[in-house]
């Protein structure tokens, strides 16, 4: 049970760290750039 809780906390902390690191290095801009244009592949054209 202790190991499981450590794993839970580790994944939570790791997830938060990755999310903040990704935003810090500008990955949010990649997501935004992709999302504000109609994705032709997604709708079955491209």
């Amino acid at each position, binding site marked *: *049970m*202790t*190991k*499981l*809780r450590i*794993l*839970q*906390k580790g*994944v*939570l902390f*790791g*997830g*938060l*760290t*990755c*999310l*903040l*690191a*990704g*935003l810090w*290095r*500008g*990955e*949010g*801009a*990649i*997501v*935004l750039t*992709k*999302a*504000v*244009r*109609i*994705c*032709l*592949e*997604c*709708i*079955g*054209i*491209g």
Partner: protein
Amino acid sequence: MARPSRSARRHLFQALWALGTNAFLVGFARGTIYSGRLKALCVPGLNCYSCPGALGSCPLGALQATLGSYEFQLPLYISGFLMLVGTVLGRFVCGFLCPFGMVQELLYRIPFPKKWRSFPADPLLRYLKYFILVVFVLVLPFCLTDLIGQGYPWFCKLLCPAGTLEGGIPLLLSNETLRSAVGLLFAWKIGFFAVLLLLSMAIFRPFCRYLCPLGAIYAFLSPLALLHYERSDGCNGCGICSTVCPMAANPKHNPNPRECIRCGACLSACPQQALTVRFGFLTPSSLSDDAPHNSKFPEN
């Protein structure tokens, strides 16, 4: 006035969430999509960002976009988002926050000659979604790139039914320019989507069970989820919870199986009221009967 059932409350929540995250209604009329800065944020469920109403981004689309970009190959932002959401909510996302899951549930209500809860190939087919995750979402966007190193969203392109339903159909209905560009790819996607619609009338959430890579991610993390079920000592092993489970997830063996979408059907059905919802770190009551309580990673 009687309080609405758990199921009715969940359906209402699903509808409100779907409407709230796709509230750019003017996009449906104009045949355009929302282009504000909110789209840098992901919604937790499968919700195409090319849906005219979508206010946020699809995490799968964003994951493939980052993997396929030439600036970043390691998608820290989206990986972190999925790890956080998966560890906090697990497949609660599937049961409450996924518009396409809601669509499948509505279709299942349509009368059909035969409804299947499970069949012999069902357990093996559940692993197909992990294969789709690895190949179409992770490997192909990363490996198959064009001359400038840009990859494509292969899952979105070839398989995603949410893109067809939420993006393709409304945009093509209202945008003549896009309509003129329709070809074989759209024919494939519409055909695939039609098959899924039909299957959804016979099997509860077939896309979520067998094909959804986002469901695969959350299923993988679900045993660690802070939002989980606990089974008290009042359980008498009657198995009614497993009988009523629409996902055939077998909560009698494990109150938090990977296939559980937290719909609450087992909670409502338990005559002993032995199953409860809890938000917090795991306790021995959260684990399967076969898991030692000091404890191994719980299996479905």
